[in-house]
């Protein structure tokens, strides 16, 4: 059961990564990400430097939003775009790396607990004798 869950998680992670890389495999979208990595910005501000219609830029932005790389929130009437840093955490593998690290450490911790328990089971006789 746990294995199936893990496989499902890995599959959906792969799908998300595919979406991220597909979204970034376009020079206009990379330029948008670069712009937003400096600071959040309004849609119109993002579109400004591009020699294309606002509509065309909006399409690129929607692809980035669908991939999870870019987020949109409203401030009054403005639509503000920003980078979703979590999507990068996944891309750069931090979550996977740390999870793997701690799982191994906790395995080692449990092994040590087992060793210490054995030591204690050997111990009580001596302790009894000592207390009397």
């Amino acid at each position, binding site marked *: 059961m746990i294995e199936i869950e893990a496989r499902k998680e890995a599959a959906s992670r792969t799908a998300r990564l595919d979406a991220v890389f597909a979204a970034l495999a376009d020079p206009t979208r990379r330029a948008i990400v*670069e712009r937003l*990595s400096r600071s959040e910005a309004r849609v119109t501000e993002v579109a400004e430097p591009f020699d294309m219609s606002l509509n065309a830029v909006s399409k690129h932005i929607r692809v980035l939003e669908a991939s999870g790389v870019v987020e949109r929130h409203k401030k009054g009437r403005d639509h503000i775009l920003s980078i979703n840093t979590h999507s*990068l955490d996944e891309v750069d593998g931090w979550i996977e790396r740390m999870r793997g690290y701690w799982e*191994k450490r906790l395995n080692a911790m*449990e092994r040590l607990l087992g060793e210490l328990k054995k030591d204690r089971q050997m111990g009580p006789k001596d302790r009894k004798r000592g207390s009397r």
Partner: protein
Amino acid sequence: MGRGETTGAIVQIRRRVSATAEQIFDLWTKPDLMVRWMSPYPGAVDCKASCDLRPGGHFSLVMSSAESNREVSGTYVQVDRPHKLVFTWTGPLTNNVETLVTVELNPRGDETDLVLTHERLPTPAIYEGHTKGWGNILNHLADAVSKSF
């Protein structure tokens, strides 16, 4: 705990451990026990730990092998034996950026539920790291794309 909008990434692991909360807490905080399981390097590694177990106190774990010398260190934020231990954590694995580790221990009869939470902190350094990270990814992509044409 109050959290802003820009929280960093979080890794959380839960485990039922067959030991008391006190025993587990000591494994995390006593240097002679820490060195017996915290080092990720197998084989002949000289591992030294020191810790000043109080909020604001410092700890460090130094692992030296023939090839390398690595240190993990941090500062205790909360020390509540045997329920909760919170400390900052900086080392090669975190790219030497400060992160936060919380260990919670909840007794369940003879066993204990351990919940480990490791967070990237939403500091300017992390933000810079992210920006650099994006730059790297974009560069790699550009390389890959230019090579494929």
